[in-house]
């Protein structure tokens, strides 16, 4: 088994290392222009410097707060709306066009408007995150609840279960994998929301760091922010995947 694991990861690891080496070589010797590209070694040094000075911590704290608050609010409302839609056909019909429409719309384009409304503090970013995370969560929750197997519902009915028991014992657990998938989808969208909204105007945050570094042509710091964002995204998605194997193991293998 370990042989298989090594085989599975070997190609990926080699390709990442190769890519980094290539990047290092290109930025040192081919495009040796500090205004256009930063070498991985320089980026690491920039991360180290920004961390020591406390600046990185400040940006990460602001962006994390925006993401966490927006994501939490969107999750609660999204799951709530999904429940409502699954339980009332009228509610679903009334909401469906809005949900589908807004899900397809790049609502991130509304970020400047939200900044006008709510200022350049964290709340305009929170609102952007909400508009991006809400819809996949709602849609998945509703779909998960609606696709409960009729066979399982009938089985529970044969034991005299009432509507509430059917909901709690069958619909909810069978919707859980869908809900988790929706929440996972929300991570990437939420992160994009935070950064892009900060680009439009913010006092602090990783997006603000990117925009300030770009203005001063500080490529190592710009890439430093991007790397931190990438690591955050990968880590959160991995944590979710792990959570799925714990919470909904029956959907695997």
């Amino acid at each position, binding site marked *: 088994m370990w042989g298989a694991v090594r085989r599975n990861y070997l190609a990926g690891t080699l390709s990442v290392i190769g890519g980094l080496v290539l990047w290092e070589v290109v930025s040192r010797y081919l495009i040796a222009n500090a205004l256009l590209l930063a070498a991985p070694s320089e980026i690491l040094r920039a991360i180290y410097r920004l961390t020591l000075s406390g600046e990185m911590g400040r940006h990460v704290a602001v962006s994390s707060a925006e993401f966490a608050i927006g994501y939490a609010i969107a999750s609660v409302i999204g799951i709530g709306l999904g429940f409502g839609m699954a339980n009332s056909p009228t509610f679903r019909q009334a909401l469906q066009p809005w949900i589908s429409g807004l899900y397809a719309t790049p609502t991130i384009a509304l970020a400047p408007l939200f900044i006008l409304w709510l200022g350049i503090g964290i709340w305009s970013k929170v609102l952007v995150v909400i508009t991006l995370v809400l819809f996949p969560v709602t849609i998945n929750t509703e779909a998960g609840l609606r696709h409960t197997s009729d*066979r399982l519902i009938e089985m529970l009915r044969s034991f005299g279960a009432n509507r509430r028991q059917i909901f709690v014992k069958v619909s909810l657990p069978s919707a859980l994998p869908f809900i988790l998938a929706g929440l996972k989808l929300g991570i990437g969208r939420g992160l994009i929301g935070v950064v892009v909204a900060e680009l439009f105007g913010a006092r602090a945050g990783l997006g603000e760091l990117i925009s300030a570094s770009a203005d001063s042509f500080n490529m190592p710091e710009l890439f430093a922010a991007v790397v931190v964002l990438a690591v955050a995204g990968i880590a959160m998605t991995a944590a979710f995947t792990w959570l799925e194997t714990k919470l*909904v193991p029956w959907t695997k293998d």
Partner: protein
Amino acid sequence: MARKLDISSLGKRFGALEALCGIDVEVERGEFICVVGPSGCGKTTLLRIVAGLEPATSGTILLDGKRVDGPGRNRGFVFQNDSLLPWRTVLANALIGPEVAGRVGAKERQRTLELLNLVGLGGFEHYYPRQLSGGMRQRVNLARALAIDPDVLLMDEPFAALDAQTREIMQSELLRIWEQGRKTVLFVTHQIDEAVFLADRVLVLARRPGRLQETVRIKLPRPRQLDVKRKPEFVDYVDHIWRLIEHDVRASVIDERQ
């Protein structure tokens, strides 16, 4: 002997389709009834009506003299597909009936564990359905129905999805379990030999509309072992029933091809 189940002039329509018509059956307490008939003759529908999962269009069903008008804990349903909840262990699946009724104490747990033992699943109570074979899953399905200690067991082709060998084993296992409690059983099957092996009486249904064609009393001694299937009487019963439904079965096969 008190009559357990009394089905009289039962009819069921689905729109223009007459699924069942004029079904009259009286079932004694502890009797094992098998229902056979061509595909689409209404076997499942009959069982679902007795279970209270489907309302009848006409006629009545009395269980212990009381009218059936919904699902109840005096009837346990064993589904053709096992319908196990994939996120629950074997034990938690088998306990769903008591749980819905609102009582899962040490007593229910103990009883259900004993039932799992009885169906041959001792030691598997903490397994998940995906870790079990088809035969084992059907045993959980049976234990789950028994866990509410129903008066009547309703079984809809419970062994249809199993391979031939497993099915034979499950048939004799079912009889062994039944001998210990002698519940009233209504068992639907497509296999005529399965019906003859299990039943005290076989109800032969005809189709279009679904109706009772003949009731065949099986006078083979109990307890029955699998070798009874080689006895000439057994073969005669199977032959007789096959001849009753042969015409309908051919017609239904031709219907389904079209």
